[in-house]
Structure formats: C-alpha cells, structure tokens
C-alpha cells in the first residue's frame, strides 16, 4: 500500500500534499479542512490522506513518528514537514514560505 503513495509522490510532477492522520485522534479529525481548502483553491495540487497506523514504516522514512503531520512534496522531493495541528493562518504562512504555491 505504501508503495502506491511513494509512486504517486514521485510520478506527479506538481505539488503533492500528504496528510498523515490517525482517524481515532481528535487533533487529526480537526485537520480534514486542509485537504479541502487546498483542493478548492489549487485543484492542480494533489492532496492525499494516509492513516499513520497503516503506513507507519513509510512515514518513518520521512522522520514522521506521529500524527497529524503534513508533508509537502515537489517533484518527488520533500519540501516541507509540518507536525501537529495548525490553523489556517499557520498553513498559509508555511506554504508561502516553502514557495511552491500561495493560497489567497
């Protein structure tokens, strides 16, 4: 299963946002809006959601040891890792900082 994620990250030329969550945790449940927000404003960005418990080994390769965590890849390269829960302003700021795309 994790191979599919890896394949998607490396085969997509644009930006791939991977949301690592754990459905049983409250903090993770509050992170659903990120995918919707990004998808709504930037349909070209590929947003995928993966459950940490199902992809633990894969997540560890990106030094992700818990959830929620948001990874941003560009051309297969990890460009940003945001751990924990965060708000809209924070998301906008970090995404702008990475320079890949701006959210209005």
């Amino acid at each position: 299963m994790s191979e599919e994620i890896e394949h998607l990250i490396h085969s997509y030329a644009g930006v791939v946002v991977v949301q690592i969550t754990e459905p049983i945790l409250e903090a993770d449940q509050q992170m659903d809006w990120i995918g919707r927000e990004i998808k709504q404003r930037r349909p070209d960005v590929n947003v995928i959601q993966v459950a940490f418990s199902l992809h633990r080994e894969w997540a560890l390769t990106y030094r992700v040891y818990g959830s929620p965590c948001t990874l941003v890849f560009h051309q297969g390269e990890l460009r940003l890792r945001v751990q924990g829960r965060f708000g809209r302003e924070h998301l906008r700021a970090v995404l702008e900082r990475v320079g890949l795309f701006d959210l209005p």
Partner: protein
Amino acid sequence: MTDRPVPSHQMVPTFTDLLVLVPARDGSRLLLIEQIPPWVAQWVGKTPREIEGEPINRISGEVMDALAAVADDVFNTETPVEDYYIEFRDMAGRERAVKISAQRVEDYHLSEASRARDRAKESGPAVLIHLQDVSESVSQRRRSFGIGIFHGLVGRSKPMLKVFYKIEVYGPTDASVIISGETGTGKELVAQALHERSPRRGKSFVAVNCTALSEELFESELFGHERGAFTGAFRSHKGRFERADKGTLFLDEIGDMSPRTQAKLLRVLEHGTIERVGGEQEQRVDVRILAATNRSLEQIVAMGRFRADLYHRLSVFRIHVPPLRERDGDLPLLVDYFLEMISQRYDRRGVRLTPDAMRLLAEYHWPGNVRELRNVLERVFVETRGQVIGRNAFREWVRERDYLSAGGWNLERLETQRTVAPMIITPPESDRVSGPGFRVPSFPPPPAPSRPLALPQEGSGSAGILPATGRTIDAVYSVEHALSRKPKVLTEEMIRQAFADTDGNATRASRLLGVHKATLYRHMKALGLSRKDLAGTQHDAPSSAPTGSDSVAARPKNSTARGPKP
C-alpha cells in the same frame, strides 16, 4: 509542579512535564537534553541525571527518535508544534502514547549544571517540549475504534475507521445524514450509533422501512391518523414522527418512498410540523432525520423518481458503509464477534473456526455482507456439534451459493439433487481468480490425486471413494472428458459442439469445455450466442426456450460469479 528550586530570573519554570533541549556549543547542531521529566526518562530505562547533557538523538528508544525529529524541526524552522501524537513502545514493550506541543524560545536561562558542563552562556535558544502522557485514553479509543465495540459496529479496516470517525463528527450535530451502502452492511447500526452520539440519545430512536408499507399506510404510519379518518381507523394513532419527537427518525430505503410522501416529508422537514391523516391541526415536532439507501440517490434523482429538493434537504452529511469485501482484515474480527455472540445465545462456549474454514470465508464475495456472514455462522454453529467448525461444515452453504453464482437459483434442481446426495461443485483451477470482485465462491480444489478421478455416473446415486485420499466424492453428475482445461479461446464451433454433446445442458457443456459456467456464458455473450441459438444445435433438443435460470439474459444483476476476463 516544580521539582527543583526556580531561580527568580528564570523566565520558564521547570515543570515536571517539560523537556528542554538546547543546542550544543561546539557547532555540531546537536540538541542536548537540558531537562527531562523523570517519567519520560523512565520510558527509555534511564534517570534524568543519566541523560541530561546528552544529545537527544544519541539516546536510544522510539520516543527519543520522535522527540529528536520534532525538536530538530522546531529549532530549525522556528515553527511551533501543537497537539502532535506519538505512539511508541517503551522499554518494557508496552504501547504508549504521548501528546506534545513544542516551541523555540530565544532567551532560555540555562541551569547552573548545564553552564558548568558546557561552559555555556547564561541564556540562549532552546526548544521546549510540553509532554502529556495520553497512553490510557489513546489505547481506550483504539480499543473502542479498533476492535469494534463501537455501538455494535465491528471492524478496524480503514474504511470502517472512516465510518466511525464520521459517526463521531456527525453524531453531535442536528443535521440530516444519508447513510448509503449495500444490503446487510449495517446501515441501521450506523443510524443508531449516530443517535447514541447525539444529544438526543436519551429520547426515542424510531425506525421506518419505506419499502415495507403501502403508500396509504405509510402516510398514516409516518404522520399518524385521527379516529375515523378512514375505514378501519377505530382510534387515533400516533405517527412515527410524533413518537420520535425530540429524538431521531430513521427512514430506511428512502429511495423507495412515493412522490406524494416525499412532498409531505419535505414539508415536515422545512416547517417542522406534521398533520395527522384526517386531522385538522398542525403539530410541531422536533425530529432529526437519518435516512438510508442501498441505491444511488443521485441516480434516482436524475431519473426523476426522487425529489431533488428533498435530496438536498437530507444529504447534509453522507456516510457510506463499505461492503464486507472491501473491509480488509475485518472478517476474522467479525467471525470472532459473531461466534462469541452465538455461543452466548446457544450456551455453548469455546467454538471456533479452523484456519481452513476461515480461508473459505475469506475467498467469498459476500453479496449479502455482514448480515449474510452472521446468518451463515449461526447456521453452521447450530449444525455442528463439535467445538471446532471446519471447512466441511460450510459444504451445503457453498453448494447453495454456487447455484446462486452460476446464474440464478435453480431451486427445483437443487432440491432434486439434495434428495439424491449432497454435492460439492468444485470449479476448475483456471476459473479461480483472486482479487476483489473476481471470486468464484466455491471450495478450493482438492489435493491433487495420484490418478485421474473416477466419478460415478449420473443417476447412480452412490458415492465414490477417491483412492488417493480416501475422501468421499459425492458428486452425482456425469463428467465428460474436457477438451482442454485451460482454453484460451472458445470458438463458436466449440461451444455449439459442447451444447450438442450435452443435450443443451449448460453446466455439463461448461464442464466439457473445461471452463466455469460463468466463463462459458461470457464467451457466449461475446460471440453473440444465446441459448436459443444453441438449442438448434442439440441432437435432440427441445425447440422451446431454455429455462430462465439458464438464460444469460435472465441472470440476476447481483450474481456473484465472475471468472477471468477473456
């Protein structure tokens, strides 16, 4: 809260749940442990004294790796981390979980020990990580989510976790929810769970099956009626809406509701009032509507059989309950759960399935989903006397199942054969395909015999013994020599010949061709051949059309037999 004296100049007090990391002064970019709570040090089998002053990434232990990664990010990006959950195993192998929040501060005043140790300045940057041990609550949630004591819903597969999560989120709201899913997936359980998770849980949960009632009766059932409203209305009757007041009304199979009732329901949803049949007064009701459907409401709306305005009014939230075949890993859990339940009911404990029997169940497509599984288990539980249920206990069920998959219930034939002898239909290996949606529901092939099987001829009624294994072969149909066990292409001529040789019997023709019956039908369809065409090629075939159950056109849509693609 403090475990050591706090100097008056120190801005951040030393809390027992605070991990402090400071950069090493040697330019190595390492983060040294300035302060660590004793209970965190214990997780890696150390005391604070042993590891304070050490680089965090040199302390072994899952939790230290995770904390080091977080600390690195926070220190380098200056981005704080909030509510990050780390699950790990401690030194004793126990599963633990910690919730952390971390931030970088610039003027952290170092302890005297640290200054002496590292010849550091009085203050400098540091990463403060606030830790909270949440092992108990996480494991509790994981148990309730994972093992499936989640309001009677069993499962820990990803799609089911998603369902549980949605129940948690949508439950406390007052909005309508449409629950979709195939028959037998547990839509009503989801509705009950939503009710239980809502502030209405102390009030009534009233369920109505929209297909079970006629249109006239349905209206009266939903909204109630006054005495004398119609013939037979000897007394006034409270409708389901009234009974569900302040609670939840669950409308099952809402797609089958008549247009007139749809209009009335819409009115209730919009105005919050009902009027009994034959009544003159409107009555205010406070009801949350949950609706279930096993069909695509969108499609029914597009066909004009369901009001679009009602659809939009109802579909505020949507929960799709996955079919059993898409719930990876849930089958063993469900089997255990149902066996336990059935054991209690019949007061016979400790009954279990053999791995072989479990494999048999795992190979099946489960068109009837969890309900079918529960019924099958109850059936074999009752039929089996011993404590262990093996593969053979499912034999009759498999046989019936195969008839369904072969193109329809040929009950007459099934009964005839049942009276003669039980039978196991084993499709050839070439037809057995693994993977979701492509399963031939049947027994796996028997072990390879040392010599060719000699099955008894049709009508003999006697069971033969397979010499190699001693296993009883109790098939009662004749077996012709197959032309080829794995035909790559079935030509029209081959099919015609097979039908001619078997007097138009599709089952025997398929055996003769060495393919499963479903495969034969598929080839026939691809070649544009119908049973009618082939009837003409029989040696002494009747001119009438074949029975519905053998006809390709009559094959039910929910037939589960699928062979490999040609």
